[in-house]
């Protein structure tokens, strides 16, 4: 029984396959106006109104599928654009960095040109002292690069930053002019009145004039005097921003805002020549002498 059924099925499949092959052969041989082609056109005419109706019924479904597909595409596009934006932002940062470096180098060259008697060494700032009570920075060069203690440090635009107080072979510690222990020989650019600039521990420094009756006014520029031998003369220190009342000891409290951006130093210029004429012991002894 099963064997007969299987045989019938085999005959059936062979017959159907032969019919299919005949259909394909006839269809592919006949012209566009042949029987089967005309039958197809006729059938399509019958079914097309139904297809149109169904198309309208299913348009929300179609839109929904389209929306989902587009969402997938939009996500891919968003990710691609985000990557592109990140890359471009990175490039912009690099360019800005390069531009800033270029500006810094230009100002350093200008400083060098305006001080032909002084030799500078440009050094990177590699860190700052974590102790909030000490105003010092660390620079990436030491005595192996020719640096020594008490050398003056200038900012990229040629303003006084401080001096080296500790030198190792590869790094040095720079005491900023705002440090409470710092003192530098200074004078007023306008009239040459001499004084000492001392750190206050904050963002400004104080000027103590030797002549208490000196003519001093707001906005006067204070420069190094060269006294003490650690700083060459004529380096800008800052501008007078506040002149206080005369005290009992007849001194005047004069505050100076440093010209150097001491909180944003990336590179500094070390005055390697002329070298500091004060030996460490002498400087220590006359620390308040600049």
């Amino acid at each position, binding site marked *: 029984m099963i064997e007969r*059924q299987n045989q*019938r*099925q085999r005959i*059936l*499949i062979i017959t*159907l*396959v032969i*019919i*299919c*092959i*005949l*259909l*394909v*052969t006839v*269809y*592919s041989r006949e012209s566009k106006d042949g029987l*089967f082609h005309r*039958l*197809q056109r006729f*059938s*399509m005419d019958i*079914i097309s109104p*139904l*297809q149109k*109706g*169904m*198309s309208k019924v*299913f*348009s929300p*479904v*179609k839109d929904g*599928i389209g929306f989902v*597909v587009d969402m997938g595409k939009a996500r891919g596009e968003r990710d691609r654009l985000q990557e592109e934006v990140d890359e471009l932002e990175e490039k912009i940062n690099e360019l800005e960095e390069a531009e800033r470096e270029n500006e810094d180098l230009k100002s350093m060259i200008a400083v060098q040109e305006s001080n032909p008697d002084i030799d500078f060494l440009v050094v990177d700032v590699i860190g700052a002292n974590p102790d909030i009570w000490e105003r010092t920075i660390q620079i990436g060069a030491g005595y192996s690069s020719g640096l020594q203690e008490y050398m003056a440090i200038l900012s990229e635009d040629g303003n006084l930053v401080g001096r080296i107080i500790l030198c190792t072979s590869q790094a040095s510690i720079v005491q900023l002019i705002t440090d409470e222990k710092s003192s530098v020989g200074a004078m007023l650019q306008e009239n040459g009145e001499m004084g000492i600039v001392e750190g206050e521990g904050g963002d400004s420094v104080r000027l103590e004039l030797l002549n208490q009756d000196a003519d001093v006014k707001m906005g006067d520029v204070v420069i190094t005097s060269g006294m003490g031998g650690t700083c060459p003369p004529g380096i800008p220190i800052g501008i007078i921003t506040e002149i206080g009342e005369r005290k009992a000891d007849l001194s005047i409290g004069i505050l100076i805002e440093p010209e150097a951006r001491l909180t944003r130093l990336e590179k500094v210029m070390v005055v390697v020549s002329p070298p500091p004429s004060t030996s460490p012991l002498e400087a220590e002894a006359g620390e308040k002498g600049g």
Partner: protein
Amino acid sequence: MHRRLTFFLILIVTLLVQLTVSPEIGIGSVRPDVILVVTLCWALLEGAGQGALFGFFGGLLEGIFSTAVLGVGAFSKTILGYFCGELRQRVVSKSVIWPMIIIFFGSILSELIKFSAWAIVGLEERPPLSFGIIVGFALYNAVITLLVYPVISRFAEREEKAMMFQ
């Protein structure tokens, strides 16, 4: 008689769904072949002979209502319907996963048979063979099997009950 009527009704409804609904639920260029899915489900439930017959008439009607080379669809669906029906004796599980897997691979075979037939008859304007589209098509067919197989199996069960009653 009852059996033939069920067969005919399922065939007509499937054809209508294929001609009207299937183009509307396409994802990109991938559209499900409902006739192929129903053919293979029918073959798995009813056997090789029924599968071959459903595939033949389904493919033939689909060819008549389209501009495809007449007989190619019928050819591939007849062969696949027959061999799927032969698988019925080997698949014991009633899970819908097996039909899904069979329909996934059956869909890939169906397209390969179509491309071969087109090449043999020398069809000039053949679409480029894209395995990505074929796999997408097979996946879509496998997914709609989840909906189609339970419906077809219900008809097949009713058919069996009716025969038992007689």
